[in-house]
């Protein structure tokens, strides 16, 4: 998985926890809010785990920032 995909997955897990916690806690359904809590924890864990398993290097991060700053790379250069 690319770094952006991993970040996207973490973000989706974090956001998915919200309705489960809200509905589960309000209705008193332990399974629902428990699942929401697990998703919240998993969403948080994904990046920490990816930090030690991902092959993306600091050099890539620097290059990405550089591309963002210049916005483009010339075709004919």
């Amino acid at each position: 998985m690319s770094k952006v995909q991993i970040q996207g997955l973490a973000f989706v897990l974090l956001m998915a926890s919200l309705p489960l916690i809200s509905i589960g806690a309000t209705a008193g359904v332990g399974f629902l809010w428990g699942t929401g809590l697990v998703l919240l924890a998993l969403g948080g864990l994904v990046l920490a785990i990816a930090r030690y398993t991902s092959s993306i290097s600091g050099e890539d991060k620097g290059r990405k920032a550089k591309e963002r700053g210049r916005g483009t790379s010339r075709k004919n250069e």
Partner: protein
Amino acid sequence: MAPIVVLLVLLVGRRWSAAEAGPVGMFAAAGIAVFAFRSSLETVAVAGGKGVWDAVFVLYVLWPALLLYRVGERAGAFAALREGIARFSRNELFLVLAFGWVFASFLQATAGFGIPIVVVAPLLLALGVRPLYAVAMPLIGHAWANMFGAFAVGWLATLQVVELSNPAETAFQTAILLWTPNLLAGFAIAWLYGRWAAVRHAWPLVLIVSAVHGGLQLALTLWEPVLSTFLATSVALVLLRPLSRWRRYSEPAEDIEERPAMQDGLDGTGEISKEEPRPVMGLGMALLPYGVFAVVTMVALMISTAGTAPERLGVGPPFPEEETGFGVVNEAEEPYSPFTPLTHPGTFLLVGALTGYVVYRVRGYYHTRNEREETQGIWAGLVGDAAPASIAIVAFLATSGIMKETGQTDVLALGISEVLPPVAFTFLSNLIGGLGAFMTFGNTTSNVLFAPLQQTVAAAGGLSEATIIAAQSSGGAVGTAVAPANVALGMGAVGTAGQEGDVLRRVLPWAAVVALTTGGATVLLNNLTFL
């Protein structure tokens, strides 16, 4: 205190990104809530869920703001903006201040999230500024605009985490304190460019621009804090045109001999490389999406002020009452903190972005730019920018929610207020904001973490809530200039990673002077009420 220490160690000591470290801080807060504050897992889940919901308000500004930036960037609007400004003058110092301070502030007001650094640093490099200075200048220049910049995302987040007794007074005092880093930024950038000779040459320009930045922002907070920095920086940007016609700033400054910020062999005229292709659009077209945003916002505000329907169309999730083993009770809320999309600035940003996209597409700017250069897609660029920042914001808001709802923030605040006398705390309160921004590289995240704590200490010590929150906000803004992640972002943008310490050495003296000045001003403001 442990979640904050964990964040500090991971962000500063271990150099983790905010998106990586934020969730670990959240786990620390949850662990302490369960084992030391006798909270049930359900209480922790509900507190975390409220934090995630609080993040929605912030994310609905972050994503549309970055979309607005990406729509313009891909069409070549920022190249047009740069050329539009650079055509104004042959005075290198004027251009350095125009880019490093005025344009960086405008970008912070419109996009934020590190964009002023990664956009302006390469532009200054193109003007002939040395890489270390090209990063240091926008770091200093953009900082003041953090709190009400990015369409006041920091302010909106603060309102989410603390219930202010007088929001108008708080916004006003925040704007007073932010004027200092703005004014000192102008002088500091001039000094970096050409020491005292440059300061003598630049002082009228610095005073005029700072009067617009700081004064207009201050006045506009009385009306609408969300638009205050955007309008102030927009007016300053427009003001560059008449200022560039002033002979003092239209011709090269011949009285500045020492120019340590500039590369060797330049003549001081600020000529940009002739290899740069002609922009695909003019200055007015480049500013179109931002103009649409401003108009839509003003219309919506007028409708809202008239008390019609949009304000009432709110949605929010329900949460039940929770109580910890120590008797901290959080009442049931249905709905919790309703979200009103029709009056939220994120919607106005979306309208501006979509209008810009349609107009640029119809006029063929994307097609023209694609023929010239390879460009990153709007969506890919947006996700790449927004995803890590979103994770950090969700994690920090969940951390803040858990600490607040389980009583951790209260205990921490009461401990600090017992250790420090009120005057000392008042003087140092901006440093707490600075520490938060240093840790998390954001004014918003600093306020989310520390505004509840500052509010509680202020109440416990009999201090002005508005002044202490203002000091927290101002300190948080200045802290972004020395945040390691921001420095690293800038160094990456100019391709000289690894010299972050050298940049910090140029920025830290300015930050120290601002912190001392803000501390003194905070002590003075503590006894004053304006509104």
